Protein backbone atom coordinates (compact mmCIF):
# COMPACT_ATOMS: atom_id res chain seq x y z
CA UNK A 1 0.00 0.00 0.00
CA UNK A 2 1.41 3.36 -0.97
CA UNK A 3 0.45 6.19 1.29
CA UNK A 4 -0.66 9.46 -0.23
CA UNK A 5 -1.92 12.60 1.41
CA UNK A 6 -5.41 11.48 0.51
CA UNK A 7 -4.99 8.08 2.18
CA UNK A 8 -4.06 9.82 5.42
CA UNK A 9 -6.97 12.20 5.23
CA UNK A 10 -9.41 9.37 4.48
CA UNK A 11 -8.05 7.50 7.48
CA UNK A 12 -8.75 10.44 9.79
CA UNK A 13 -12.27 10.89 8.46
CA UNK A 14 -12.93 7.17 8.87
CA UNK A 15 -11.67 7.27 12.43
CA UNK A 16 -13.98 10.16 13.35
CA UNK A 17 -16.90 8.33 11.77
CA UNK A 18 -16.17 5.19 13.80
CA UNK A 19 -16.32 7.24 16.99
CA UNK A 20 -19.51 9.02 15.96
CA UNK A 21 -21.19 5.74 15.05
CA UNK A 22 -19.96 3.99 18.20
CA UNK A 23 -17.95 1.38 16.31
CA UNK A 24 -15.43 1.21 19.13
CA UNK A 25 -14.03 -2.26 18.46
CA UNK A 26 -13.05 -1.15 14.97
CA UNK A 27 -11.60 2.01 16.45
CA UNK A 28 -9.51 0.11 19.02
CA UNK A 29 -8.18 -2.08 16.21
CA UNK A 30 -6.67 1.05 14.62
CA UNK A 31 -4.25 1.41 17.52
CA UNK A 32 -0.75 0.07 17.87
CA UNK A 33 -0.33 -1.80 21.17
CA UNK A 34 1.95 0.76 22.82
CA UNK A 35 0.07 3.87 21.71
CA UNK A 36 -1.29 6.56 24.03
CA UNK A 37 -4.32 8.81 23.77
CA UNK A 38 -3.34 12.07 25.43
CA UNK A 39 -5.66 14.95 26.27
CA UNK A 40 -3.66 17.68 28.07
CA UNK A 41 -5.18 19.76 30.85
CA UNK A 42 -2.89 22.75 30.39
CA UNK A 43 -2.45 24.95 27.33
CA UNK A 44 0.66 23.83 25.41
CA UNK A 45 1.40 21.16 28.02
CA UNK A 46 4.60 19.22 27.34
CA UNK A 47 4.59 16.52 30.04
CA UNK A 48 1.85 13.87 30.09
CA UNK A 49 3.29 11.90 33.01
CA UNK A 50 4.30 14.11 35.92
CA UNK A 51 1.49 16.62 35.82
CA UNK A 52 -2.26 16.20 35.54
CA UNK A 53 -3.83 15.58 32.14
CA UNK A 54 -7.48 15.07 31.30
CA UNK A 55 -6.54 11.73 29.73
CA UNK A 56 -3.34 9.82 29.15
CA UNK A 57 -4.44 6.30 28.37
CA UNK A 58 -2.77 3.23 27.02
CA UNK A 59 -4.64 0.61 25.06
CA UNK A 60 -5.75 -1.22 28.21
CA UNK A 61 -7.35 1.93 29.61
CA UNK A 62 -8.96 2.73 26.27
CA UNK A 63 -10.42 -0.79 26.14
CA UNK A 64 -11.73 -0.32 29.66
CA UNK A 65 -13.29 3.01 28.70
CA UNK A 66 -15.01 1.45 25.70
CA UNK A 67 -16.08 -1.72 27.53
CA UNK A 68 -17.59 0.36 30.33
CA UNK A 69 -19.78 2.32 27.93
CA UNK A 70 -21.83 -0.81 27.27
CA UNK A 71 -21.94 -2.14 30.85
CA UNK A 72 -25.25 -3.13 32.39
CA UNK A 73 -24.51 -0.96 35.45
CA UNK A 74 -22.92 2.01 33.75
CA UNK A 75 -25.32 4.49 35.29
CA UNK A 76 -23.95 7.61 33.63
CA UNK A 77 -24.70 5.99 30.25
CA UNK A 78 -28.37 5.43 30.92
CA UNK A 79 -29.34 6.84 28.54
CA UNK A 80 -26.28 6.78 26.34
CA UNK A 81 -24.33 9.80 25.12
CA UNK A 82 -23.92 10.50 21.43
CA UNK A 83 -21.15 12.45 19.70
CA UNK A 84 -20.43 14.17 16.46
CA UNK A 85 -17.15 15.34 14.91
CA UNK A 86 -16.87 18.06 12.27
CA UNK A 87 -13.41 18.06 10.71
CA UNK A 88 -11.52 20.68 8.82
CA UNK A 89 -9.34 19.28 6.08
CA UNK A 90 -6.37 17.77 7.97
CA UNK A 91 -2.83 19.11 7.58
CA UNK A 92 -0.18 16.53 6.83
CA UNK A 93 2.78 17.79 8.84
CA UNK A 94 5.14 14.93 8.29
CA UNK A 95 5.17 12.39 5.50
CA UNK A 96 7.99 9.88 5.79
CA UNK A 97 6.96 7.04 3.47
CA UNK A 98 10.29 5.28 3.86
CA UNK A 99 10.00 5.02 7.65
CA UNK A 100 6.25 4.54 7.38
CA UNK A 101 5.70 7.45 9.72
CA UNK A 102 3.16 10.21 9.30
CA UNK A 103 2.03 13.13 11.45
CA UNK A 104 -1.19 15.06 10.92
CA UNK A 105 -2.94 17.99 12.58
CA UNK A 106 -6.71 18.25 12.38
CA UNK A 107 -8.88 21.06 13.67
CA UNK A 108 -12.35 19.95 14.56
CA UNK A 109 -15.51 20.70 16.42
CA UNK A 110 -16.77 18.00 18.72
CA UNK A 111 -20.33 17.80 19.97
CA UNK A 112 -21.32 15.47 22.77
CA UNK A 113 -24.89 15.16 23.93
CA UNK A 114 -26.92 13.30 26.50
CA UNK A 115 -30.47 13.95 27.68
CA UNK A 116 -31.13 17.71 27.46
CA UNK A 117 -27.50 18.75 27.52
CA UNK A 118 -25.19 19.32 24.57
CA UNK A 119 -21.66 20.64 24.69
CA UNK A 120 -19.42 21.88 21.93
CA UNK A 121 -15.65 21.59 22.16
CA UNK A 122 -13.15 22.96 19.68
CA UNK A 123 -10.24 20.56 19.30
CA UNK A 124 -6.86 20.17 17.72
CA UNK A 125 -6.01 16.52 17.13
CA UNK A 126 -2.45 15.51 16.40
CA UNK A 127 -2.07 11.99 15.06
CA UNK A 128 1.12 10.01 14.78
CA UNK A 129 0.35 7.30 12.26
CA UNK A 130 2.46 4.33 11.23
CA UNK A 131 2.31 1.91 8.36
CA UNK A 132 2.56 -1.59 9.83
CA UNK A 133 2.09 -4.74 7.76
CA UNK A 134 0.49 -2.72 5.01
CA UNK A 135 -2.06 -1.07 7.33
CA UNK A 136 -2.17 2.45 8.67
CA UNK A 137 -2.34 2.46 12.47
CA UNK A 138 -2.49 5.07 15.24
CA UNK A 139 0.84 5.19 17.06
CA UNK A 140 -0.20 8.12 19.28
CA UNK A 141 -2.95 10.68 19.40
CA UNK A 142 -2.98 14.02 21.18
CA UNK A 143 -6.19 15.99 21.52
CA UNK A 144 -5.97 19.59 22.75
CA UNK A 145 -9.19 21.27 23.77
CA UNK A 146 -9.11 24.99 23.01
CA UNK A 147 -10.66 25.90 26.38
CA UNK A 148 -8.71 23.21 28.27
CA UNK A 149 -8.61 25.42 31.38
CA UNK A 150 -12.39 25.78 31.62
CA UNK A 151 -14.53 23.90 34.11
CA UNK A 152 -16.10 21.02 32.22
CA UNK A 153 -19.16 18.90 32.65
CA UNK A 154 -18.81 15.17 31.95
CA UNK A 155 -16.96 14.33 28.75
CA UNK A 156 -17.89 10.67 28.39
CA UNK A 157 -17.10 9.69 24.82
CA UNK A 158 -13.92 10.17 22.80
CA UNK A 159 -13.23 13.62 21.30
Amino acid at each position, binding site marked *: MSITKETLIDFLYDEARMLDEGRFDEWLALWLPDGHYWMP*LDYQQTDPINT*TSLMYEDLFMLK*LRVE*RLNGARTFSQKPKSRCHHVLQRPFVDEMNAEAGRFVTTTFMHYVETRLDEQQLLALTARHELALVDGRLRIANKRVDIVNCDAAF*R*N*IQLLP
Partner: protein
Amino acid sequence: MGRYTENPKAVADLFQGHRVHRDVYINNEIYNIEMKHLFANAWVFVGHESQTPNKGDYFATQVADQPVVQVRHSDGDIYVLRNRCPHKGTKIVIDRSGNTGKFFRCPYHAWSFKTNGNLLAIPLKKGYQDTGFSDSENSKGMPGVGAVKNYRGFIFCRLAEQGISFEDFFGDSLSSLDNMVDRSPEGRLEVVGPPLRYLHYCNWKMLVENQTDTCHPMVAHESSAGTAMKLWDEVTDKDTPLPPAMEIIAPFMSPYEFFEEMGIRTWPNGHGHTGVHHSIHSKYSEIPGYKESLAKTYGTEKAEEILAENRHNTVYFPNIMIKGPIQQLRVFIPLAADKCIVESYIYRLVGAPEELTARTAMYNRMINAPTSIVGHDDLEMYERAQEGLHADGMEWVNIQRLYEEDEDFSKEAVENGTTERQMRNQFDAWVKFITMSMKQEDAS
Protein backbone atom coordinates in the same frame (compact mmCIF):
# COMPACT_ATOMS: atom_id res chain seq x y z
CA MET B 1 -37.43 37.61 54.01
CA GLY B 2 -38.03 33.90 53.90
CA ARG B 3 -38.48 31.17 56.42
CA TYR B 4 -34.84 30.97 57.56
CA THR B 5 -33.04 34.29 57.21
CA GLU B 6 -33.52 35.57 60.74
CA ASN B 7 -34.48 32.31 62.28
CA PRO B 8 -31.46 30.34 63.52
CA LYS B 9 -33.74 27.86 65.25
CA ALA B 10 -35.43 26.94 61.99
CA VAL B 11 -31.98 26.49 60.41
CA ALA B 12 -30.75 24.36 63.31
CA ASP B 13 -33.87 22.20 63.10
CA LEU B 14 -32.87 21.10 59.59
CA PHE B 15 -30.48 18.60 61.18
CA GLN B 16 -32.01 16.09 63.54
CA GLY B 17 -29.24 13.68 64.46
CA HIS B 18 -30.10 10.85 62.13
CA ARG B 19 -31.60 12.89 59.31
CA VAL B 20 -31.23 16.16 57.48
CA HIS B 21 -33.90 18.18 55.73
CA ARG B 22 -33.71 18.51 51.94
CA ASP B 23 -33.68 22.31 52.20
CA VAL B 24 -29.97 22.19 53.07
CA TYR B 25 -29.40 21.01 49.48
CA ILE B 26 -32.13 22.63 47.41
CA ASN B 27 -33.23 25.82 49.16
CA ASN B 28 -31.78 29.07 47.79
CA GLU B 29 -32.33 30.95 51.02
CA ILE B 30 -30.32 28.36 52.95
CA TYR B 31 -27.60 28.65 50.31
CA ASN B 32 -27.43 32.43 50.81
CA ILE B 33 -27.25 31.98 54.58
CA GLU B 34 -24.41 29.50 54.12
CA MET B 35 -22.48 32.07 52.09
CA LYS B 36 -23.09 34.84 54.61
CA HIS B 37 -22.61 32.94 57.85
CA LEU B 38 -21.19 29.43 57.52
CA PHE B 39 -18.31 30.34 55.21
CA ALA B 40 -17.61 33.53 57.17
CA ASN B 41 -17.24 31.81 60.53
CA ALA B 42 -15.26 28.76 59.42
CA TRP B 43 -11.62 28.54 58.31
CA VAL B 44 -11.68 28.02 54.57
CA PHE B 45 -8.94 26.86 52.22
CA VAL B 46 -7.54 29.48 49.85
CA GLY B 47 -4.46 28.04 48.12
CA HIS B 48 -0.91 26.79 48.59
CA GLU B 49 2.09 29.03 49.22
CA SER B 50 3.93 27.51 46.25
CA GLN B 51 1.31 29.12 43.99
CA THR B 52 2.76 32.49 45.07
CA PRO B 53 6.45 31.77 45.75
CA ASN B 54 7.89 35.24 45.04
CA LYS B 55 7.09 38.76 46.19
CA GLY B 56 4.31 40.21 44.08
CA ASP B 57 3.05 36.76 42.99
CA TYR B 58 -0.71 36.47 43.17
CA PHE B 59 -3.33 33.80 42.74
CA ALA B 60 -6.97 34.75 42.23
CA THR B 61 -9.62 32.39 43.57
CA GLN B 62 -12.79 32.45 45.58
CA VAL B 63 -13.70 31.64 49.15
CA ALA B 64 -17.31 30.57 48.89
CA ASP B 65 -18.87 33.42 46.89
CA GLN B 66 -16.13 35.89 47.76
CA PRO B 67 -13.62 36.80 45.04
CA VAL B 68 -10.23 36.91 46.76
CA VAL B 69 -6.61 37.13 45.79
CA GLN B 70 -3.76 35.39 47.57
CA VAL B 71 -0.64 37.53 47.25
CA ARG B 72 2.96 37.49 48.53
CA HIS B 73 3.69 40.92 50.03
CA SER B 74 7.07 42.66 50.14
CA ASP B 75 7.54 41.48 53.74
CA GLY B 76 7.42 37.87 52.46
CA ASP B 77 4.08 37.10 54.09
CA ILE B 78 1.04 35.90 52.21
CA TYR B 79 -2.04 38.11 52.33
CA VAL B 80 -5.58 37.30 51.31
CA LEU B 81 -7.42 40.33 49.94
CA ARG B 82 -10.88 40.83 48.56
CA ASN B 83 -10.50 41.09 44.85
CA ARG B 84 -12.27 44.40 44.31
CA CYS B 85 -11.29 47.97 43.80
CA PRO B 86 -12.54 50.13 46.70
CA HIS B 87 -13.56 52.69 44.10
CA LYS B 88 -16.17 51.06 41.84
CA GLY B 89 -15.83 47.37 42.66
CA THR B 90 -13.82 46.33 39.60
CA LYS B 91 -11.93 43.10 40.18
CA ILE B 92 -8.30 44.14 40.41
CA VAL B 93 -6.94 40.77 39.34
CA ILE B 94 -8.60 39.24 36.30
CA ASP B 95 -6.21 36.45 35.32
CA ARG B 96 -5.78 33.46 37.61
CA SER B 97 -2.17 34.03 38.57
CA GLY B 98 0.85 36.17 37.82
CA ASN B 99 3.23 38.72 39.32
CA THR B 100 2.05 42.26 39.96
CA GLY B 101 5.42 43.70 41.00
CA LYS B 102 5.34 46.06 43.97
CA PHE B 103 1.72 47.10 43.64
CA PHE B 104 -1.69 46.32 42.18
CA ARG B 105 -3.16 48.80 39.74
CA CYS B 106 -6.86 48.92 38.96
CA PRO B 107 -7.35 48.79 35.17
CA TYR B 108 -10.37 51.12 35.35
CA HIS B 109 -9.10 54.40 36.95
CA ALA B 110 -5.53 53.47 37.93
CA TRP B 111 -6.03 53.47 41.66
CA SER B 112 -3.06 51.55 43.01
CA PHE B 113 -2.51 49.44 46.10
CA LYS B 114 0.40 47.90 47.94
CA THR B 115 0.41 44.12 47.94
CA ASN B 116 -0.98 44.14 51.48
CA GLY B 117 -4.03 45.97 50.10
CA ASN B 118 -3.23 49.45 51.42
CA LEU B 119 -4.07 52.35 49.12
CA LEU B 120 -0.93 53.65 47.42
CA ALA B 121 -2.07 56.34 45.01
CA ILE B 122 -5.02 57.80 43.15
CA PRO B 123 -4.51 59.89 39.97
CA LEU B 124 -5.59 63.52 40.28
CA LYS B 125 -6.03 63.08 43.99
CA LYS B 126 -6.78 66.73 44.61
CA GLY B 127 -10.29 66.00 43.37
CA TYR B 128 -10.93 64.30 46.69
CA GLN B 129 -9.69 67.21 48.83
CA ASP B 130 -12.26 68.44 51.35
CA THR B 131 -14.77 65.83 50.19
CA GLY B 132 -14.56 63.65 53.30
CA PHE B 133 -13.09 60.87 51.17
CA SER B 134 -10.24 60.21 53.59
CA ASP B 135 -12.78 59.29 56.26
CA SER B 136 -14.48 56.72 54.05
CA GLU B 137 -13.79 53.01 54.11
CA ASN B 138 -13.03 53.24 50.40
CA SER B 139 -9.91 55.26 51.13
CA LYS B 140 -8.30 52.37 53.01
CA GLY B 141 -7.58 50.17 50.02
CA MET B 142 -8.50 46.62 49.06
CA PRO B 143 -10.35 45.01 51.98
CA GLY B 144 -8.69 42.07 53.65
CA VAL B 145 -10.27 39.10 55.38
CA GLY B 146 -10.72 38.48 59.09
CA ALA B 147 -7.66 36.28 59.56
CA VAL B 148 -5.12 34.35 57.50
CA LYS B 149 -3.08 31.29 58.48
CA ASN B 150 -0.25 29.64 56.59
CA TYR B 151 -0.15 26.11 57.96
CA ARG B 152 2.84 24.23 56.57
CA GLY B 153 2.32 25.88 53.20
CA PHE B 154 -1.47 25.66 53.05
CA ILE B 155 -3.23 29.02 53.19
CA PHE B 156 -6.54 29.24 55.04
CA CYS B 157 -8.61 32.27 55.92
CA ARG B 158 -11.50 33.20 58.15
CA LEU B 159 -13.65 35.90 56.55
CA ALA B 160 -15.20 37.04 59.84
CA GLU B 161 -13.22 39.58 61.86
CA GLN B 162 -13.93 37.78 65.12
CA GLY B 163 -14.27 34.09 65.70
CA ILE B 164 -12.67 30.77 66.42
CA SER B 165 -8.89 30.48 66.15
CA PHE B 166 -7.26 28.31 63.49
CA GLU B 167 -5.89 25.93 66.12
CA ASP B 168 -9.22 25.54 67.88
CA PHE B 169 -11.06 25.07 64.61
CA PHE B 170 -8.88 22.24 63.31
CA GLY B 171 -7.43 20.77 66.50
CA ASP B 172 -5.99 17.27 66.12
CA SER B 173 -7.33 16.93 62.57
CA LEU B 174 -4.17 18.71 61.43
CA SER B 175 -2.44 15.34 61.80
CA SER B 176 -3.64 14.47 58.28
CA LEU B 177 -2.09 17.60 56.76
CA ASP B 178 1.04 16.94 58.82
CA ASN B 179 1.31 13.42 57.44
CA MET B 180 0.93 14.68 53.88
CA VAL B 181 3.71 17.25 54.30
CA ASP B 182 5.93 14.94 56.38
CA ARG B 183 6.03 12.59 53.41
CA SER B 184 8.42 15.03 51.75
CA PRO B 185 12.03 14.42 52.82
CA GLU B 186 12.32 18.21 53.02
CA GLY B 187 8.98 18.69 54.77
CA ARG B 188 7.69 20.76 51.89
CA LEU B 189 5.14 20.42 49.09
CA GLU B 190 4.88 22.21 45.75
CA VAL B 191 1.77 22.53 43.64
CA VAL B 192 1.98 20.69 40.30
CA GLY B 193 0.22 22.26 37.34
CA PRO B 194 -3.29 23.66 37.24
CA PRO B 195 -6.16 21.84 38.98
CA LEU B 196 -8.77 19.76 37.25
CA ARG B 197 -11.99 21.80 37.20
CA TYR B 198 -15.21 19.83 37.12
CA LEU B 199 -18.66 21.43 37.06
CA HIS B 200 -21.54 19.73 38.86
CA TYR B 201 -25.20 20.69 38.89
CA CYS B 202 -25.76 19.70 42.48
CA ASN B 203 -25.25 21.04 45.97
CA TRP B 204 -21.62 21.28 47.11
CA LYS B 205 -22.29 19.30 50.31
CA MET B 206 -23.19 16.18 48.34
CA LEU B 207 -19.60 16.00 47.14
CA VAL B 208 -18.19 16.60 50.61
CA GLU B 209 -20.39 13.85 52.09
CA ASN B 210 -19.33 11.45 49.37
CA GLN B 211 -15.71 11.67 50.52
CA THR B 212 -16.46 9.50 53.53
CA ASP B 213 -19.24 7.46 51.94
CA THR B 214 -17.69 4.00 51.96
CA CYS B 215 -20.78 2.11 50.84
CA HIS B 216 -20.88 3.55 47.32
CA PRO B 217 -17.60 2.56 45.57
CA MET B 218 -18.47 -1.08 44.89
CA VAL B 219 -21.92 -0.05 43.65
CA ALA B 220 -21.59 3.24 41.77
CA HIS B 221 -18.13 2.35 40.45
CA GLU B 222 -18.79 -1.24 39.49
CA SER B 223 -18.93 -0.12 35.85
CA SER B 224 -15.35 1.19 35.94
CA ALA B 225 -13.48 -0.68 38.69
CA GLY B 226 -15.41 -3.94 38.21
CA THR B 227 -14.93 -3.86 34.45
CA ALA B 228 -11.23 -3.09 34.95
CA MET B 229 -10.77 -6.21 37.07
CA LYS B 230 -12.68 -8.35 34.59
CA LEU B 231 -10.60 -7.06 31.66
CA TRP B 232 -7.36 -7.49 33.58
CA ASP B 233 -8.19 -11.10 34.36
CA GLU B 234 -8.83 -11.71 30.67
CA VAL B 235 -5.53 -10.31 29.45
CA THR B 236 -3.16 -11.64 32.11
CA ASP B 237 -2.53 -14.64 34.30
CA LYS B 238 -3.09 -14.29 38.02
CA ASP B 239 0.54 -13.78 39.00
CA THR B 240 1.21 -10.71 36.88
CA PRO B 241 1.84 -7.78 39.23
CA LEU B 242 -0.72 -5.01 38.88
CA PRO B 243 0.38 -1.98 36.85
CA PRO B 244 -0.06 1.43 38.54
CA ALA B 245 -3.44 2.06 36.90
CA MET B 246 -4.82 -1.22 38.25
CA GLU B 247 -3.30 -0.55 41.68
CA ILE B 248 -5.33 2.64 41.71
CA ILE B 249 -8.67 1.39 40.44
CA ALA B 250 -8.93 -2.20 41.71
CA PRO B 251 -9.38 -1.29 45.44
CA PHE B 252 -12.61 0.54 44.55
CA MET B 253 -14.18 -2.92 44.23
CA SER B 254 -13.11 -4.03 47.72
CA PRO B 255 -15.88 -5.77 49.63
CA TYR B 256 -17.90 -4.14 52.42
CA GLU B 257 -15.71 -5.84 55.06
CA PHE B 258 -12.67 -3.96 53.74
CA PHE B 259 -14.43 -0.65 54.23
CA GLU B 260 -15.95 -1.66 57.58
CA GLU B 261 -12.55 -2.57 58.92
CA MET B 262 -10.73 0.49 57.55
CA GLY B 263 -12.43 2.63 60.19
CA ILE B 264 -13.59 6.25 60.29
CA ARG B 265 -12.30 8.87 62.69
CA THR B 266 -14.21 12.05 63.47
CA TRP B 267 -12.86 15.19 65.09
CA PRO B 268 -14.77 18.16 66.50
CA ASN B 269 -15.93 20.95 64.14
CA GLY B 270 -16.88 18.66 61.29
CA HIS B 271 -13.52 17.19 60.35
CA GLY B 272 -12.97 13.48 59.85
CA HIS B 273 -11.32 10.81 57.76
CA THR B 274 -11.73 7.33 56.40
CA GLY B 275 -8.94 4.77 56.48
CA VAL B 276 -7.86 4.67 60.11
CA HIS B 277 -6.33 1.20 59.84
CA HIS B 278 -5.83 0.76 56.10
CA SER B 279 -7.23 2.23 52.91
CA ILE B 280 -7.42 1.94 49.14
CA HIS B 281 -3.95 3.54 49.11
CA SER B 282 -2.28 0.95 51.41
CA LYS B 283 -1.15 -1.53 48.78
CA TYR B 284 0.59 0.80 46.36
CA SER B 285 3.98 -0.61 45.41
CA GLU B 286 7.09 0.98 46.85
CA ILE B 287 9.02 3.48 44.77
CA PRO B 288 12.75 2.65 44.85
CA GLY B 289 14.83 5.08 46.89
CA TYR B 290 11.90 6.89 48.50
CA LYS B 291 11.86 5.19 51.88
CA GLU B 292 15.62 5.63 52.13
CA SER B 293 15.47 9.36 51.44
CA LEU B 294 12.72 9.74 54.03
CA ALA B 295 14.74 7.75 56.58
CA LYS B 296 17.68 10.07 56.00
CA THR B 297 15.57 12.97 57.22
CA TYR B 298 13.56 11.36 59.98
CA GLY B 299 15.36 8.16 60.92
CA THR B 300 14.05 4.73 59.97
CA GLU B 301 11.49 4.37 62.72
CA LYS B 302 9.82 7.73 62.18
CA ALA B 303 9.94 7.29 58.38
CA GLU B 304 8.13 3.97 58.69
CA GLU B 305 5.59 5.56 60.99
CA ILE B 306 4.87 8.27 58.43
CA LEU B 307 4.44 5.75 55.63
CA ALA B 308 2.32 3.39 57.75
CA GLU B 309 -0.37 6.06 57.92
CA ASN B 310 -2.56 5.49 54.86
CA ARG B 311 -5.53 7.69 55.52
CA HIS B 312 -7.98 7.55 52.66
CA ASN B 313 -9.98 10.81 52.53
CA THR B 314 -9.67 13.51 55.17
CA VAL B 315 -12.50 16.03 55.10
CA TYR B 316 -11.66 19.46 56.44
CA PHE B 317 -14.96 21.12 57.13
CA PRO B 318 -16.50 22.88 55.36
CA ASN B 319 -15.28 22.21 51.83
CA ILE B 320 -11.98 20.48 51.17
CA MET B 321 -10.71 16.91 51.14
CA ILE B 322 -7.09 15.80 51.16
CA LYS B 323 -5.44 12.48 50.42
CA GLY B 324 -2.21 12.41 52.42
CA PRO B 325 -0.72 9.28 50.84
CA ILE B 326 -0.90 10.76 47.33
CA GLN B 327 -0.74 14.50 48.07
CA GLN B 328 -4.04 15.47 46.52
CA LEU B 329 -6.41 18.25 47.61
CA ARG B 330 -9.94 18.75 46.30
CA VAL B 331 -11.89 21.92 46.99
CA PHE B 332 -15.67 21.91 46.57
CA ILE B 333 -16.57 25.46 45.61
CA PRO B 334 -20.26 26.37 45.94
CA LEU B 335 -21.75 28.41 43.09
CA ALA B 336 -25.48 28.07 43.82
CA ALA B 337 -27.73 25.72 45.78
CA ASP B 338 -27.64 23.37 42.80
CA LYS B 339 -24.25 24.18 41.28
CA CYS B 340 -20.64 23.73 42.33
CA ILE B 341 -17.16 23.28 40.92
CA VAL B 342 -14.67 20.80 42.29
CA GLU B 343 -11.03 21.69 41.72
CA SER B 344 -8.54 18.85 42.18
CA TYR B 345 -4.94 19.85 42.92
CA ILE B 346 -1.87 17.67 43.22
CA TYR B 347 1.43 18.41 44.95
CA ARG B 348 4.98 17.23 44.55
CA LEU B 349 6.87 15.91 47.58
CA VAL B 350 9.97 18.08 47.43
CA GLY B 351 13.04 15.85 47.58
CA ALA B 352 11.18 12.62 46.76
CA PRO B 353 11.39 10.56 43.53
CA GLU B 354 9.33 11.95 40.67
CA GLU B 355 7.61 8.56 40.22
CA LEU B 356 5.44 9.50 43.19
CA THR B 357 4.24 12.60 41.36
CA ALA B 358 3.51 10.46 38.30
CA ARG B 359 1.30 8.13 40.37
CA THR B 360 -0.52 11.10 41.89
CA ALA B 361 -1.08 12.68 38.48
CA MET B 362 -2.41 9.34 37.24
CA TYR B 363 -4.80 9.08 40.19
CA ASN B 364 -6.03 12.62 39.59
CA ARG B 365 -6.85 12.09 35.91
CA MET B 366 -8.19 8.55 36.33
CA ILE B 367 -10.52 9.28 39.23
CA ASN B 368 -11.29 13.01 39.36
CA ALA B 369 -11.21 14.43 35.83
CA PRO B 370 -14.31 15.46 33.87
CA THR B 371 -13.11 12.72 31.51
CA SER B 372 -12.83 10.14 34.33
CA ILE B 373 -14.78 6.92 34.03
CA VAL B 374 -15.07 6.99 37.84
CA GLY B 375 -16.09 10.63 38.13
CA HIS B 376 -18.87 10.18 35.57
CA ASP B 377 -20.82 7.85 37.80
CA ASP B 378 -20.33 10.01 40.91
CA LEU B 379 -21.68 13.06 39.09
CA GLU B 380 -24.62 10.98 37.89
CA MET B 381 -25.50 10.02 41.48
CA TYR B 382 -25.25 13.58 42.83
CA GLU B 383 -27.35 15.09 40.08
CA ARG B 384 -29.98 12.38 40.33
CA ALA B 385 -30.19 13.21 44.04
CA GLN B 386 -30.41 16.94 43.35
CA GLU B 387 -33.43 16.28 41.12
CA GLY B 388 -34.92 13.51 43.23
CA LEU B 389 -34.97 15.61 46.39
CA HIS B 390 -37.71 17.73 44.86
CA ALA B 391 -40.08 14.78 45.14
CA ASP B 392 -42.71 15.75 47.70
CA GLY B 393 -44.05 13.32 50.24
CA MET B 394 -40.62 12.79 51.81
CA GLU B 395 -38.60 15.80 52.88
CA TRP B 396 -35.76 14.19 54.83
CA VAL B 397 -32.47 12.61 53.82
CA ASN B 398 -31.42 9.64 55.92
CA ILE B 399 -27.91 9.54 57.42
CA GLN B 400 -28.63 6.91 60.06
CA ARG B 401 -26.12 4.14 59.30
CA LEU B 402 -24.58 3.07 62.63
CA TYR B 403 -26.27 5.98 64.37
CA GLU B 404 -26.35 6.16 68.12
CA GLU B 405 -28.62 8.44 70.05
CA ASP B 406 -27.06 11.51 71.67
CA GLU B 407 -23.86 11.32 69.66
CA ASP B 408 -21.22 13.66 71.05
CA PHE B 409 -19.20 15.25 68.27
CA SER B 410 -17.12 17.38 70.63
CA LYS B 411 -14.77 14.44 71.16
CA GLU B 412 -12.64 12.49 68.73
CA ALA B 413 -14.05 9.05 67.92
CA VAL B 414 -13.02 6.04 65.84
CA GLU B 415 -15.74 3.79 64.51
CA ASN B 416 -16.67 1.17 61.94
CA GLY B 417 -15.63 2.42 58.49
CA THR B 418 -19.14 2.26 57.07
CA THR B 419 -20.70 4.58 59.61
CA GLU B 420 -22.31 7.79 58.39
CA ARG B 421 -21.12 9.48 61.56
CA GLN B 422 -18.78 11.80 59.66
CA MET B 423 -21.73 13.11 57.64
CA ARG B 424 -23.58 13.71 60.90
CA ASN B 425 -20.44 15.34 62.29
CA GLN B 426 -20.41 17.72 59.31
CA PHE B 427 -24.01 18.72 59.89
CA ASP B 428 -23.37 19.19 63.60
CA ALA B 429 -20.61 21.65 62.64
CA TRP B 430 -22.81 23.12 59.91
CA VAL B 431 -25.44 24.05 62.50
CA LYS B 432 -22.81 25.42 64.86
CA PHE B 433 -21.04 27.68 62.38
CA ILE B 434 -24.04 28.79 60.34
CA THR B 435 -26.11 29.87 63.34
CA MET B 436 -23.14 31.37 65.21
CA SER B 437 -23.63 34.84 63.75
CA MET B 438 -27.32 34.69 62.79
CA LYS B 439 -29.59 37.09 64.62
CA GLN B 440 -32.85 35.90 66.10
CA GLU B 441 -35.90 37.58 64.65
CA ASP B 442 -37.32 40.28 66.87
CA ALA B 443 -40.04 38.51 68.86
CA SER B 444 -42.31 41.57 68.66
